[in-house]
């Protein structure tokens, strides 16, 4: 029977778990595959609906970031293939962007101006953390981002950063967090002193 050869569609939880595993083991490869398969569809849609290639790139990357963060956090439910999900979010984002532009005509920023803007969702304190993180050195930056943003398991972080055990990777992670905290606290205390004068 030929129908036996067709695997049943994976349940949503399995699909999301498979994507999470693929992103954890090979982030560049997995993202490149998703990009290659899905971006042309999004670009076609955005161009047909009054957008440019740059607009398509912006909404697609925003959508991919949404998908990525949900997938690694384990909060993603996929009722279809990841590319279908990406196209749906991209269309949604582009519709919202079009509405925004209609309401606020002639207020489009040049790319250079947009680059200058702080992240809209970012509180000022969080944005200042970025500068101190950049001063920490590559190893600490990598450990902190791998754990807190990319949600890599400590086993993986220990292996990629040459720590003998999960325990020593954990200690190192907290040492890095402590250094970041000290840098930030010193800076904030300085600002508070200035304001109190």
């Amino acid at each position: 029977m030929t129908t036996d050869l067709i695997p049943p569609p994976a349940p949503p939880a399995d699909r999301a778990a498979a994507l999470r595993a693929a992103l954890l083991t090979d982030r560049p490869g997995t993202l490149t595959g998703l990009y290659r398969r899905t971006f042309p569809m999004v670009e076609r849609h955005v161009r047909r609906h009054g957008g440019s290639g740059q607009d398509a790139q912006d909404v697609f990357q925003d959508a991919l970031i949404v998908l990525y963060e949900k997938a690694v956090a384990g909060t993603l439910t996929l009722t279809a293939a990841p590319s279908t999900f990406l196209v749906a979010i991209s269309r949604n984002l582009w519709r919202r962007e079009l509405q925004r532009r209609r309401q606020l005509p002639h207020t489009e920023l040049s790319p250079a101006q947009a680059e200058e803007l702080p992240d809209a969702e970012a509180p000022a304190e969080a944005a200042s953390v970025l500068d101190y993180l950049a001063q920490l050195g590559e190893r600490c930056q990598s450990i902190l981002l791998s754990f807190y943003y990319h949600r890599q398991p400590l086993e993986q972080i220990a292996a990629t950063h040459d720590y003998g055990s999960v325990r020593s990777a954990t200690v190192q992670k907290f040492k890095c967090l402590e250094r970041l905290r000290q840098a930030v606290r010193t800076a904030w205390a300085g600002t508070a002193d200035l304001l109190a004068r």
Partner: protein
Amino acid sequence: MRPELTRLQRIEQHLLGPAPTAEAAAAWQLEQLLDPALAADAAVQQQLYQGLQLAGRQQLRRELQAIHRQLYGPPTGGWLRGAAGELRALLRRFRR
């Protein structure tokens, strides 16, 4: 681990751990009474996590832009094409 690091770990567990049970919430309240700096330190640590989230997102965005360039090449009509055009115009003038 040093006590300072254990404290960071304790705050992390409170901020990022699974939703606290009534018992755990009561324990945190008690700890705050015994350690007046705990709430302020937890607030700072929460800002660090938000900053890391932001930094991670920027890193991912850079990775996606690199993937885009790798798949579709640099943007057309940008400075490179402009510069090439100017160079051609210059050569034409030079040949006269």
